[in-house]
């Protein structure tokens, strides 16, 4: 096998180097004259010794092993793997942004602060909230921040409300964040249309309800049509409404959580607002709130004083700081660039196209796969592999077979309330040709399940590593790389 498919340690040759250092013009010193003996290595570090060309080939080969939106279609539901425009990268890399330090005095970084301030304003307008903090570094951290704001708000009103309501189709981070914020979670069942069961909600809302967390459109891609009544029910009991806006791709410029009656919102900039993601970060989960909740937002807050931007640390009711420095600046710069290059009309088009694409794919696939909620969807939709299960093939096999066609599979087995679930989010950035080619592959797989199921059951066939033996991996895991493997 070509040596660039091996580990860099395996191709190392003693004495080989990729760079020649100039002769030293100062006298060498003995290390043990300068450092205590117990801190010195006894054996040399096993650093790889390779030529520059070997190094270039090695890392180029590694980069090709990755799969991302830049390689191909990536319809991962609830994750919005849309194309991330390269202009965002250019802006985030501008020296005036990338080479500043968070502890620099505010007057020396006015441009960066202006960007943050204007991004806050834009996100407030997009979400229909009165103020926004950019500090949280992920959706889940935004949820936790929002719930801490709710908690402090209730306590300020002399109430210790202990429950957070979460629908059964919610993303797992919702109940997790509620638990970390010290609340008990109460699950609200969905009705047969995949929406919040309003009657069940009414029974569970009470004086102990701190908040209801809701995603709208929900994780089935369906718009909660009763949202105004849901908001009334929760507000009448004194609770707050929390909007999980991780997937805001269907509502940009069409409606806002504010209009729906929500009090707290988080947005995932690394989904809707185009930061490359999928490897665990970095991300950004800004939180917006209505007027009453502004005093509880994290500090420091960025404010405008005449023509200057300043930091404000002095807010006695604030929940405090939730992140080192002021958030993930590079991601905020990307989101700002995206919003400003798209403009209001562009963002509205994003949502219209995202919804159109999802419905187009849904229509093309719904005669081949069970469509448990066969109705107009928003930016994503779910299918069930229940028909294929009767033929002995599962959603897991369908996902793996898609790899043979060069696609990243959709989200599978989530949400939990759909049997053998496939959750597909094509996003607005794909062409009709791509959507059609993906639909053709999905239809071909459905036909294979009927005619030649083994080809699906034994997939993938064309990947670097074939079908993995998961049982062996569970029983005899090899957790450490050894050369002989």
């Amino acid at each position, binding site marked *: 096998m070509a040596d660039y498919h091996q580990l860099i340690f395996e191709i190392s040759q003693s004495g080989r180097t990729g760079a020649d250092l100039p002769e030293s013009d100062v006298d060498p010193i003995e290390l043990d004259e300068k450092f205590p003996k117990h801190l010195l290595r006894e054996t040399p570090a096993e650093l790889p010794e390779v030529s520059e060309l070997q190094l270039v080939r090695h890392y180029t080969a590694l980069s090709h092993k990755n799969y991302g939106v830049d390689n191909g279609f990536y319809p991962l539901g609830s994750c919005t793997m849309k194309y991330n425009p390269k202009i965002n990268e250019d802006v985030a890399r501008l020296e005036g942004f990338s080479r500043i330090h968070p502890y620099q005095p505010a007057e020396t970084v006015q441009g960066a602060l202006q960007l943050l301030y204007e991004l806050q304003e834009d996100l407030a307008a997009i979400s229909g909230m009165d103020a926004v903090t950019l500090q949280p570094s992920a959706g889940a951290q935004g949820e936790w921040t929002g719930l801490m704001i709710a908690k402090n708000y209730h306590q300020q009103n002399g109430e210790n409300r202990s429950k957070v309501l979460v629908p059964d189709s919610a993303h797992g981070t919702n109940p997790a964040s509620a638990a970390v914020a010290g609340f008990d979670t109460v699950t609200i069942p969905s009705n047969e249309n995949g929406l919040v069961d309003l009657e069940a909600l009414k029974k569970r809302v009470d004086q102990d309800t701190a908040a209801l967390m809701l995603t709208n459109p929900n994780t089935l891609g369906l718009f909660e049509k009763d949202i105004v009544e849901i908001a009334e029910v929760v507000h009448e009991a004194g609770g707050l409404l929390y909007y999980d806006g991780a997937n805001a791709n269907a509502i940009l410029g069409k409606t806002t959580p504010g209009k729906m009656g929500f009090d707290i919102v988080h947005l995932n900039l690394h989904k809707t607002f185009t930061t490359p993601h999928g490897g665990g970060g970095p991300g950004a989960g800004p939180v917006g709130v209505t007027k009453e909740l502004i005093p509880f937002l994290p500090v420091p807050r960025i404010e405008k004083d005449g023509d200057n931007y300043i930091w404000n640390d002095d807010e006695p009711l604030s929940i405090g700081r939730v992140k080192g420095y002021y958030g993930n600046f590079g991601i905020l710069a990307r989101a700002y660039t995206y919003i400003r290059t798209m403009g209001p009309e562009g963002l509205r088009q994003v949502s219209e196209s995202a919804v159109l694409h999802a419905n187009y794919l849904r229509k093309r696939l719904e005669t081949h796969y069970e469509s448990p909620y066969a109705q107009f969807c928003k930016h994503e939709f779910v299918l069930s592999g229940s028909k294929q299960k009767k*033929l002995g093939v*599962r959603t897991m*096999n369908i996902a793996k077979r898609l790899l043979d066609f060069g696609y990243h599979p959709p989200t599978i087995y989530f949400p939990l309330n759909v049997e*053998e679930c496939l959750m597909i989010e094509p996003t607005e950035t794909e062409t009709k040709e791509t959507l059609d080619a993906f639909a053709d592959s999905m239809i071909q797989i459905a036909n294979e399940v009927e005619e030649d199921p*083994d080809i699906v059951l034994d997939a993938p066939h064309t990947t670097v590593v074939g079908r993995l033996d998961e*049982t062996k991996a569970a029983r005899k895991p090899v957790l450490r790389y050894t050369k002989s493997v």
Partner: protein
Amino acid sequence: MIHITKEAQQKLSSIEWQDGVLPRVDANVTGGCGLTINYLFIFDQARKNDTIYHSHGVSIRVDPFTKRYLEGNPPTVDYSDTDGFQVINEVEFDSC
């Protein structure tokens, strides 16, 4: 391929089977934090390409998906009044 304890055999032989229904060992995938696979013992209709295992006078179905997981790891079906039927197999795993 499938072991059945005495208790499970006794219970199964006392059941009156309805049309087309047979017991099945089924690998079940659940989502959430990564994917989890566990084994269920259920009663249902045939699926296409099922394999039927006969053991101690009992017929048990396995679908091709599940069969690939059971290869080399024969599970044991047990029964107790408190827990009902259970599939014991050390290969259950999840990715969390």
